[in-house]
């Protein structure tokens, strides 16, 4: 299932998920570089820093509820993310129906993964999005 994924940013404050995501990304793309942020604010800093040296993330994996005052939704609505429009997966424990009712129009281009996570679900969603 190799893909051309080179650079991934995972924005998640639950650090117990780190091992799972690293494993999933390594299965999808062996040499992909994975950065990790726990808040929207930290993610924005990393996106700007990378952009300044001409590097863009191929994939953003963003949890809805993060550390700090901003949410994953604030990050996705930020001009830094909107202007680049990277492929994005939103991860959350919310009900899919509520997400679809409230945000599906605005976030039509985004894939949603409902927690609890499992390796197959995460891997399939990434492959579907980036292949």
């Amino acid at each position: 299932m190799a893909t051309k994924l080179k650079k991934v940013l995972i924005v998640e404050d639950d650090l117990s998920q780190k091992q799972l995501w690293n494993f999933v990304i390594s299965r999808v793309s062996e040499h992909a570089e994975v950065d990790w942020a726990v808040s929207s604010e930290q993610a924005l800093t990393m996106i700007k820093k990378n952009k300044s040296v001409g590097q863009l993330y191929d994939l953003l994996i963003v949890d809805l509820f993060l550390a700090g005052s901003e949410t994953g939704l604030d990050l996705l609505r930020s001009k830094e993310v909107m202007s680049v429009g990277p492929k994005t997966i939103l991860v959350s424990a919310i009900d899919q129906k509520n997400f679809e009712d409230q945000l599906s129009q605005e976030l039509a281009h985004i894939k949603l993964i409902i927690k609890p996570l499992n390796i197959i679900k995460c891997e399939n969603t990434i492959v579907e999005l980036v292949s």
Partner: protein
Amino acid sequence: MKLMSDQYTYKPVIVITGCGSGLGYELAKALSNREDYRVLITARAHKVEKLRQSFTENDRFKIRELDILNDQNIYNVIHDICNEWGRVDVIVNNAAVCYRGVIEHMDSEAELLQLRTNYLGPMSLVRAVLPIMREQRSGQIINISSVSGILAMPTMGSYSASKHALEGASEALWYEEKPFGIRVNIVELGFVNSESFHNVVLSNKAKLSTLLKGPHSEYYLSMSPFIEKLMKLSVSPPRKIASKIIDVIEKQPTTLRIAATPDVWLFDFIRRIVPSKILNYLFWFMLPGSLSWGGRWRKSS
């Protein structure tokens, strides 16, 4: 500075914070016609204009901008009023902010703003007036607290922590300032029949959780209407509480804690008679919808 000057006919000087709305505004209204006091009402910049339109300043009633988060501003206001009126007899620490959010939905920035507004700011004002009151050998510090200062309820953890801090410091202050003739009172408010419910600030995450019915949303969806309903049923409008505070200023009670609404008395009574190992379970079962809190994320028992 005309500190301790006797060139005026003695009229106690009262300084009140957070007069832009709610209780502070009612207190300002009730004191605006009292010829026997000199009153300084204060509010943040964006509320001061409203106060100037509502009240007429004169030689015994003044309006000033005061940001309780700004120590320099506090000292400047107190310095100015001492220059003008020569003393400070009573301060009413009323300015406050109330965030509603479960602990997981709060963040350091919101927590700090709440703590600075409800505790650190009031303490700065206390420190600014204590040397003046000590020199006068008299004074009264009235800190407006809440039933949340004696009990904590879900979605009110951060607010409750700030009011517990205020209560703890006020209790210590009661002992520290007693020898100097300075009275310290905590006026505790419970459910107030007002629109102040709508002034509650929801954190970003609390708003999003409510919108998407995420984890903890059941707390907001059950607690918010419950509190709103209790506030509407309350027999204590802000006008009545303002009158109670004026009573506290006039009678200068030596008691530290004063319940301003009947429910404060009731909650305090329950807290005292029910053993602590039972108390939390009792409230848990009394709170609306508590048996379904947690939703699909709830741990099955």
